[in-house]
């Protein structure tokens, strides 16, 4: 029922958007779409018995992990669609987005939400693969919709790297299929079947198929060395889309890795794969952080920070203890929300200065106080300062990592300090520049404040409120939910 209602709502909303005329109605339907998806997710969480199979077949499966990821996706899409109302209007006024493309933007936006949600509810791994592929294509179209040359370049790079890597995942799936066929008689690619019989699977073949699957899912999440598309795509996309790319689409790859790892965890290959994941996690953090340090482009900085956080999440998955999984799951939520707030602030600043570069930003507190403070608070939250939720998540993941290797923890801590320095350096340099000090040439053309459109501040402020609340107060229902996920993935 749940998956069917997602599908039905997704289809109806596409039709409604296709037949709407004005921007306001199109946006209203898109926002409605996200709200209904939120409602379905909450209903599934509160009123139905999960885990359960869906649609009477083995294709779809609902458990707490899929509901959790689905809810995060719907929440982020909700904020992004509210933000898009004003933001996209500004893009049209600035002639960066052609009015003819407006409807296409929302159609793809809406289809992207449906595809991403269904990916989380797929039990059959091939079906998951297909939905993940579709999200790549749809989101690449959203990156390219501004039809500036660099956007098309970024989108093409994104498609070829992410989709090309996903083909290797498919080889991994074929491996897995033969492997399960040897154990079960007839092959199966259903996650539920695989995890039930995980202990029977040959560790050698399991390692091979995991490595192939990892290539695709890692590329989707921007894990080194497949991260090269990410900074371009995330920084060139319209900010409402960037928030989704970082907050939802990266989670899809991580979700795939987590599901696969929970199978591997039951086999002899666990130790090797665990080290493999931690190694890539560390490398990813290192590469991202070094790119952040002298970054002069605000959105690039935020995008590389996404790469860094995916590295931490991969590390958390690789540690593989129940506690580290618990905090990794919490980390996913915290990162998605915080990253969205940063991109929303950056979007307002980009409208103001028509540039993301550090030396174009000046007089920020008199021109855009809300976005300025949003960026400051968001930066504090993203580098993991207390009382923000990323702090506790990082702390507990690193404490668990201590059990594995002390040098690893020290290396990560050092890298995190560099990441904080990168944000600090950017904020100090950009936020202390005023046009009075800058000299005559700047004072000749005083900047007019960009009037932030209705609804653009609401998502920013609400996210900041949510992360502050989450940081000081850990709600009980969230704890129960995360515990159930840890249990259902076979960790306890």
């Amino acid at each position, binding site marked *: 029922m749940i998956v069917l209602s997602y599908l039905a709502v997704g289809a109806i909303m596409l039709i409604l958007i296709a037949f709407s005329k004005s921007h306001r109605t199109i946006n209203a339907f898109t926002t409605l779409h996200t709200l209904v998806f939120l409602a379905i997710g909450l209903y599934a969480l509160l009123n139905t018995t999960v885990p359960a199979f869906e649609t009477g077949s083995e294709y779809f499966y609902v458990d707490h992990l899929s509901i959790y990821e689905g809810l995060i996706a719907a929440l982020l899409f909700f904020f992004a669609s509210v933000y898009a109302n004003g933001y996209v209007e500004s893009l049209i006024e600035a002639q960066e987005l*052609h*009015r*003819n*493309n407006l*409807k*296409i933007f929302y159609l793809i936006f809406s289809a992207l939400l449906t595809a991403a949600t269904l990916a989380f509810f797929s039990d*059959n791994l*091939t*079906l998951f693969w*297909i939905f993940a*592929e*579709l999200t790549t*294509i749809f989101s*690449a*179209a959203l990156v*390219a919709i501004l*039809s*500036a*040359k660099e956007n*098309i*370049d970024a*989108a*093409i790079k994104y*498609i*070829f790297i992410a*989709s*090309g890597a996903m*083909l*290797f995942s*498919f*080889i991994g799936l*074929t491996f897995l*299929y*033969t492997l399960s*066929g*040897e154990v079960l008689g*007839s*092959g199966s*690619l259903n996650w539920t079947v695989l995890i039930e019989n995980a202990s029977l699977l*040959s560790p*050698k*073949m399991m390692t*091979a198929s995991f490595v192939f699957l990892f290539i695709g899912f890692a590329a989707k999440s921007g894990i080194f060395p497949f991260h090269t598309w990410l900074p371009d795509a995330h920084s060139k996309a319209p900010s409402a889309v960037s928030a989704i790319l970082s907050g939802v689409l990266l989670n899809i790859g991580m979700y795939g890795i987590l599901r696969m790892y929970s199978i591997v965890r039951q086999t002899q290959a666990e130790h090797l794969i665990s080290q493999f994941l931690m190694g890539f996690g560390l490398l990813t953090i290192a590469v991202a952080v070094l790119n952040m340090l002298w970054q002069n482009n605000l959105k690039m900085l935020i995008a590389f920070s996404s790469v860094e956080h995916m590295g931490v999440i991969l590390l958390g998955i690789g540690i593989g203890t129940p506690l580290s999984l618990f905090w990794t799951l919490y980390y996913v939520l915290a990162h998605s929300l915080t990253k969205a707030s940063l991109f929303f602030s950056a979007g307002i600043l980009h409208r103001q200065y028509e540039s993301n570069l550090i030396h174009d930003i000046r007089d920020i507190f008199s021109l855009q106080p809300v976005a300025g403070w949003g960026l400051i608070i968001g930066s504090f939250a993203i580098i993991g300062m207390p009382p923000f939720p990323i702090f506790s998540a990082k702390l507990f993941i690193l404490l668990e990592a201590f059990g594995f290797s002390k040098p690893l923890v020290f290396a990560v801590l050092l890298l995190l300090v560099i990441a904080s320095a990168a944000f600090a350096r950017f904020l100090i340099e950009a936020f202390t520049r005023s046009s009075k000090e800058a000299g005559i040439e700047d004072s000749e053309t005083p900047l007019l404040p960009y009037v932030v459109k209705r609804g653009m501040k609401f998502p920013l402020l609400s996210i900041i409120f949510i992360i502050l609340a989450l940081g000081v107060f850990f709600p009980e229902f969230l704890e129960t939910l995360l515990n159930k996920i840890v249990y259902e993935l076979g960790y306890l």
Partner: protein
Amino acid sequence: MITSFLADQALLEDIVRILFVFVLITAAFILSTRNIASLLTVYAVQSFLLTLIAASLYLIEGSEKLLAMAALTLVSKVLLIPLFINVIGEKIKISRDLEFNYLEPTASLLVSMGLIMLSYVFLSGFFDEYVLGKLFFVGAVIGLSLTLMGMLVIFSRKKVMTKVIGYLTMENGVLLFGIFVADLPFVIEILIVIDLMILVLLTTILAIGLDSTKNEYHKRLQTLKIWSGREE
């Protein structure tokens, strides 16, 4: 006569092996050919070879699923996708892709030989402990090599249209892998092809955008009637 020919398993397996070699030859062509029209023809030939492989396997194993796969490949990859790229290619008038990144054709052919060796060594490391059909193993090696060679095309060629063909070659490699374990539900096979078509559609539209200015791009899309909407 014909029935006895079709029933001869050993002969059919040999035919499949020969077809594998032909597939590799097409991949080498794709790596080095400069003319986009002939690239497309080679891709269609490659897909047709896959159709033949699937059909021969049907004769060996008798699973109707393989016949359906053969038909699906024939319709989508031999006919529809090349036709579609051809239509777009004519509109945007790129006929040759002369530039190579990093690797010249000779070097990339040498690299791909290395890749084939690598796939063999890699896969034999995993498969020797299993009692798998020999043909499956050869198919896996060729499939993986084809995927890697397709990746090489994406890296070493500049024009997006050529990259698309490189991606399609990769996909053919994966299909070659998949033919041997072709018990996936047919719905899923169809979904994969639909996914492929959308990807080709999007990348080719973007390819139009890349070599034109913004206004020109919109004009071109209008003439293609792909983006709906009116001119103001």
